[in-house]
């Protein structure tokens, strides 16, 4: 008994060690996978909170000491970040609202009329490079004297927001049971009544996802604003690139501006964690 116990204990110890080593290796691989993601965000934050001397120091200073908010104050006070932030909210907001107004009924119609061929349009729209919309629309806006206006930007951003809302809503209405609407229609309700009072309230979760995705994609768009906007009508991404880089701004304010652009998007992302994949793969998965 005692002679057998020793090797058994040793073997158990070795197995435990191996298991622990494997756990450490696994933890290291998790760290390796996640660290690169963190580095870029950490560096953005670090640059934005340091003064210019520390930002240009070599070897680099990683932890701001003492942290300063001067960079943020500067981009808002001297580079009119407030105005560009507002432009972005107006453009993405209106483009999203219009997309919801036409996209929710369209998604419903496609789902109920079984008109799935129309979603092929979404697929092709997704594949078309954004610049192919920009050149013709630029010419039309020039003809109409709309270049450099927020109206032109809102119209162009519909290219982004309408397909995604239609796609999300068609998919969502598809999952709702038809029976309730049919009961409503048998009771004498019109197609419109059954949409307005039965289907629409049930579709609220889908509407939330569609709204947030459309808003984020529109918010992140750079090239439309870069080409169509004037100095005072730029959206945030275009402003951060044009105004701040061409004025040879220091790294601190540039990182602060980048952070201001990205934070609203990251906050919205948290709300729809699970539906992001559906949004980003639209037009590629269901064809």
């Amino acid at each position, binding site marked *: 008994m005692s002679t057998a116990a020793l090797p058994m204990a040793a073997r158990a110890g070795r197995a435990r060690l191996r298991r622990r080593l494997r756990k450490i290796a696994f933890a290291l691989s998790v760290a390796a996978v996640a660290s690169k993601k963190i580095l870029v965000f950490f560096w953005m934050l670090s640059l934005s909170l340091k003064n210019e001397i520390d930002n240009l120091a070599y070897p680099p200073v990683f932890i701001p000491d003492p942290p300063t908010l001067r960079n943020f104050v500067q981009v808002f006070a001297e580079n009119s970040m407030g105005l560009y932030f507002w432009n972005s909210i107006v453009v993405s907001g209106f483009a999203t609202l219009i997309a919801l107004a036409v996209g929710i009924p369209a998604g419903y119609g496609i789902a109920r009329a079984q008109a799935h061929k129309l979603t092929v349009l979404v697929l092709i729209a997704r594949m078309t490079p954004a610049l192919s919309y920009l050149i013709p*629309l630029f010419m039309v806006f020039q003809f109409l004297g709309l270049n450099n206006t927020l109206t032109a930007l809102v119209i162009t951003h519909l290219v982004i927001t309408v397909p995604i809302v239609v796609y999300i809503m068609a998919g969502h209405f598809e999952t709702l049971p038809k029976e309730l609407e049919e009961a409503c229609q048998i009771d004498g309700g019109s197609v419109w009544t059954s949409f307005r009072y039965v289907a629409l309230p049930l579709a609220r979760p889908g509407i939330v996802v569609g709204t947030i995705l459309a808003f984020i994609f529109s918010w992140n768009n750079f090239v439309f604003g870069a080409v169509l906007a004037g100095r005072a009508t730029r959206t945030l991404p275009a402003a951060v690139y044009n105004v701040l880089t061409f004025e040879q701004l220091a790294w601190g304010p540039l990182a602060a501006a980048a952070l201001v652009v990205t934070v609203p998007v990251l906050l919205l992302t948290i709300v729809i964690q699970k539906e992001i994949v559906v949004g980003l793969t639209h037009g590629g998965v269901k064809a």
Partner: protein
Amino acid sequence: MTTAAAAQPGFLARRHRSYYLFIVPALVVVGAVIIFPWLFTAWMSAFDWKIGTAAHFVGFDNYTGLATNQRFLESIVHTFYFTALAVVVPLILGLVAALIFHREFPFRGVLRGVFTMPMMATPVAVALVWTMMFHPQQGVLNYLLSIVGLPPSLWVYSPTWVIPSLVLVEIWHWTPLVMLIVLGGLAALPTEPYESARLDGASEWQLFRYITLPLVAPFLVVAAVIRTIDALKAFDTIYVISQGGPGTASETINIYLYLQAFAFYNVGNASAVVVVFFVIILALALLLLYVRQRAKWTG
């Protein structure tokens, strides 16, 4: 319900027609901002047209000109090089990450959230931070290289390394999407084949190679389609970080197109580039979708 529909002939058809009415407003908008630009682009591509001057009809001259345009042909090569790297590397890394995150471990939810943050981050903001990180003298990347004992790199300032460096940004941005798509596939895997294979003494590698990989293959193809379309269309990060430089070393079709249209205002020629570009994207996407049809679809 079916009996009610049958009792009233034409009821179903009439209902279908009113459902189509719901689609009309969206079709009007799509017609104005999506379909009209397509047609207008195709029409413009037949003209020698600079903004501010009169347009001359030239037929297919813009297209034949592109066929012998050295700079445009080089931009196609750059685009394919960039796309190949920006599809294959995220697919491999995303698969590895998915296998890791498929297991249970402490803080998995939080780490997964962190890992997926880059996908939605504004590309321009991300590109600006990378620009600062790539800086050869003060950039943090060369400092990190020096810590592990590697020589500094010129990153995006080197004609050789500019495209791989840009791909690095692309990998950072889009590996999480591949991971999430593959995770969706892993979640749907049956457990029985694993149990019987383990009883037969299969190794972990064999389990992966002969059970996991074939079952997630359709999801990898989906990820490949999405990645290919997005990588071909990549614009923001390339434009912000390198503007197609140094020289024209990282000038992709999209960058060339942008310069033709909005630096030289050569809209006729740019429209021809759009048409050719679209055909390339469509051809590659159809090729991948064909592969997907051939692959076994378990979903």
